[in-house]
């Protein structure tokens, strides 16, 4: 019996202690008409060897393509020490640290994580993680409504250049609570939110402005001007950032005259494998004045009865298990193990390693853009500076081109036509430090050959 240790003798003795004739008797309170008749739709059990053979085969079927897709999930080198350490059973198989004395390892790790994220984003406090980048934006919008009592309407400005999935998730999460969202256009030449686009909303009462830096197109926003514009209207600023980029880019806490108010993003680039979309972790940092409006677990330092320092979950009166219907969120289980991955990653990289990852990724992307735009029919769409991602325009529909590249084992980027039809045949591409010059050459050659036959025809 897989994972059940009982011998026949154990079972006999246990039933005798209970005073039950057999195990079936333990279910005698369940109305008989409800009992399961058959589980025949389920397959029969496999041994570990058999299931691993199956999984090896499934993995081989998927293969390992050369990936130039970014769009919110980025392939970075993950030091071997990250996953070998966090999959230790003491981290992997523990639960939420409710019993603080028996969970100091997890609690101290969270405190260290909070410290690193607060410093990286230029803020004062951090929580212990949220689910992912998209849900973190949604939670930030709900938090902004609680934190900004000056605004009359629960209205949030969302740029159209925010990750489209973040926009979609935010709408799913927040519409039931009556939040309103306004879309901010992006400049067609630069791909950034222009101050002219803001003018349309200048007279409107709103709670918060969301700014993604770099935005979904990889373009850098004029964050100082946007932040000051929102603050001049007594709105809060929610920054959505890629944590790797913060090694080089101004942290949100220093945006404009006063700095952003809430900072969120997806921690995936920090030690989490692509893994078909998860598990990743969302992060959130803010100013001390808003800490009681923050959702999720928070760890604080304190002392024990003997005065020895230690750590415990704190400000729990914000949370569902205490406050129930009045909690800041229903979140409890978050993404603890991935937060651990992020903590290990940041410890191993340090400020210098992180800056090198960011700079090398930027350089690789520049190299990729030079190689691809040298091909006839391929050009850059936006003229503003960017980070490690950019939008290209092709002279024909993108989908068949990507399919032809995929058949050669190259994932050439993300087709934007469904998300941004106004951009025409647009392709979002990304290269991180994991892409070599040979990889970039291989992509450029394949794209050139894919585009050539149609031109000859």
């Amino acid at each position, binding site marked *: 019996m897989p*994972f059940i*240790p009982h011998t026949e003798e154990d079972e006999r003795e246990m039933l005798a*202690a209970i005073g*039950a004739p057999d*195990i079936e008797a333990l279910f005698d309170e369940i109305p008989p008409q*409800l009992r*399961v008749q058959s589980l025949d739709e389920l397959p029969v059990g*496999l041994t*570990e060897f058999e299931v*691993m053979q199956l999984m090896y085969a499934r993995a081989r*079927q998927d*293969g*390992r*393509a050369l990936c130039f897709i970014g769009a919110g999930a980025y392939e970075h080198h993950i*030091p071997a*020490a990250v996953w070998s*350490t966090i999959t230790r059973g003491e981290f*992997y*198989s*523990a*639960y*939420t640290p409710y019993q603080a004395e028996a969970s*100091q*390892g997890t609690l101290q790790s969270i405190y*260290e994580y*909070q410290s*690193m994220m*607060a410093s990286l984003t230029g803020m004062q406090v*951090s929580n212990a993680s949220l689910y992912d980048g*998209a*849900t973190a934006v949604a939670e930030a919008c709900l938090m902004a409504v609680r934190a900004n009592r000056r605004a009359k309407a629960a209205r949030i400005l969302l740029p159209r250049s925010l990750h489209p999935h973040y926009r979609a*998730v935010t*709408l*799913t*999460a927040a519409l039931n*609570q009556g939040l309103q969202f306004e879309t901010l256009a992006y400049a067609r030449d630069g791909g950034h939110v222009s101050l002219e686009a803001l003018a349309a909303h200048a007279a409107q009462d709103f709670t918060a402005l969301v700014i993604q830096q770099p935005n979904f197109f990889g373009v850098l926003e004029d964050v100082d001007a946007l932040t000051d514009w929102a603050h001049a209207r007594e709105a809060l600023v929610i920054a959505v950032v890629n944590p790797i980029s913060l090694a080089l880019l101004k942290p949100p806490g220093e945006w404009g005259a006063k700095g952003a108010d809430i900072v969120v993003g997806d921690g995936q680039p920090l030690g989490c*494998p*692509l893994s*078909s979309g*998860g*598990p990743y972790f969302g992060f959130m940092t803010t100013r001390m004045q808003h800490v009681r409006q923050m959702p999720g677990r928070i*760890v604080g330092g*304190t*002392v024990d*009865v*003997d005065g*020895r320092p230690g750590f415990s979950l704190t400000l729990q009166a914000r949370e569902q298990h205490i406050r129930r*219907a009045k909690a800041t969120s*229903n*979140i*409890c*289980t978050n*993404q*603890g193990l991935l937060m651990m991955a992020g903590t290990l990653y940041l410890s*191993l990289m340090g400020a210098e390693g992180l800056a090198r*990852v*960011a700079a090398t990724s*930027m*350089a690789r992307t520049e190299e990729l853009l030079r190689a691809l735009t040298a091909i006839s029919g391929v050009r850059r769409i936006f003229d503003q500076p960017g980070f490690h991602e950019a939008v290209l325009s092709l002279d024909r529909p993108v989908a068949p081109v990507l399919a032809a590249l995929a058949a050669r084992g190259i994932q050439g980027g*993300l087709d934007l036509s469904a998300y941004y039809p106004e951009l025409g045949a647009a392709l979002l591409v990304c290269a991180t430090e994991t892409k070599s010059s040979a990889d970039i050459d291989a992509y450029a050659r394949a794209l050139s050959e894919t585009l050539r036959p149609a031109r000859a025809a």
Partner: protein
Amino acid sequence: MTLALREPLIFDYSRRGRGARGQWPSVPAGSALDTIPAALRRSRRPLLPEVSELDAVRHYTRLSQLNFSIDTHFYPLGSCTMKYNPRACNAAALLPEFLGRHPLAPVEHGQGFLACLYELQEMLKAVTGMRAVALSPLAGAHGEFAGVAMIRAYHRARGDLARDEIIVPQAAHGTNPATATMCGCVAREVAVAPDGDADLAALRAAVGPKTAGIMLTNPSTLGVFERRIEEVAAIVHQAGGLLYYDGANLNAILGKVRPGDMGFDVIHMNLHKTFSTPHGGGGPGAGAVGVSARLQPFLPLPIVAREDSGSERAADGRQPQYRWLDERDLPQSIGRLTTFGGNAGVLLRAYVYMRMLGREGMRRVGEYASLNANYLSAQLQRAGFEAAYPARRASHEFILTLKQLQQQYGVSAMDVAKRLLDLGFHAPTTYFPQLIAECLLIEPTETESKQTLDAFVQAMAQILGEAQADPGQLHGAPHTLPVRRLDDVRAARELNLVYQQAAPGQQAAPG
């Protein structure tokens, strides 16, 4: 095991100029900076550790040794189903092809992965009796959000706009009322009858034209099976509401009775409980949702579909067999809940677990979880402890009430919980459900042996003896862990949430 006593902060190991250089890209950062406008550049370095790889590995390994975990300790945390996490599940999910696959990669490069997810959906349908399953919610509470959002969407689609009340039993998990609020509903609590079942009169009085639905766990949070579930379903359905099943306690009935057969319209499953994916010190989880036919159009996206062999798409031999369903397939969907398709790595672990168990193993889960709980309850009562519902069968968990211990010796449930830590056992859930005074909610799970349970009974008996002989010993517990009881009031009043780098000549902030 011996626990290391104390470990400094990672920042205490930091030395300017040190680093895990083998992990860094070889090119210094300088050159790329030119393309970033000066006003957008970072001017001061973030406060991150400067440590060697050994420093980091040793530090976090030592921190890990300060934790209790399933791998090191019996962990009878009620409502959390802390069963063994099989290693094969982790090994399979960490295969490089699965780890390296981008979430937006073409489905042609993911047929193996998608086949696993599709089959997981099918197995979850079979074992819960639901019509359709979506895997994207990232935790139990996220699944709850999806479920209540679907209930709202269902009523709204019928033009039934007044239904904004969610009924929750008094003893419900805190997530239930919190979820109702997040979905723009009002949570309305109903009483529980003295025997632990629903108070049907209170329920009848609570339902009406404003009822959107009811959220229930079954077995309930009181550790007993809700015997009047069919009447509950009838009352709520007749009032026009829907039934939500909180899958926190699904382990108790796995293979024995299915939520779909009990009349539930929507459920969430905690794959990190029932299907044994690791709890990870607070996640990641996965909160897959299942629905009856009437809620199927509202499922969250994306969902994995298999093209039938007769279909137009499949007939074209070049089309992949598995694909993601999107808004075009499910126009009434509540929408997207996650950046991508869910906690894929968690889903793969659950898939491997279910394939290893198969249909026979699945039934044994509910059976042996119930055997262990009933045995432990019987033995603890023999040892002198009081069960909250002695006349009832335990499900996979049960409640002890220590109110007599409190009255006679001034020993609280917290004292007992902390003393258990000294004796090498993780504490049960304490003070939940709040309905029961001085309670311990104990869930042994099916993966623990009789010998472990007997040792736990012995420890509890010892504590009972100590309560009578030397209650002070218990108030002061734990005595042998890295820290003793922590000052939570100070933690909340004098907030110390991040490490502050000491200025030259000063001492670092406490930590």
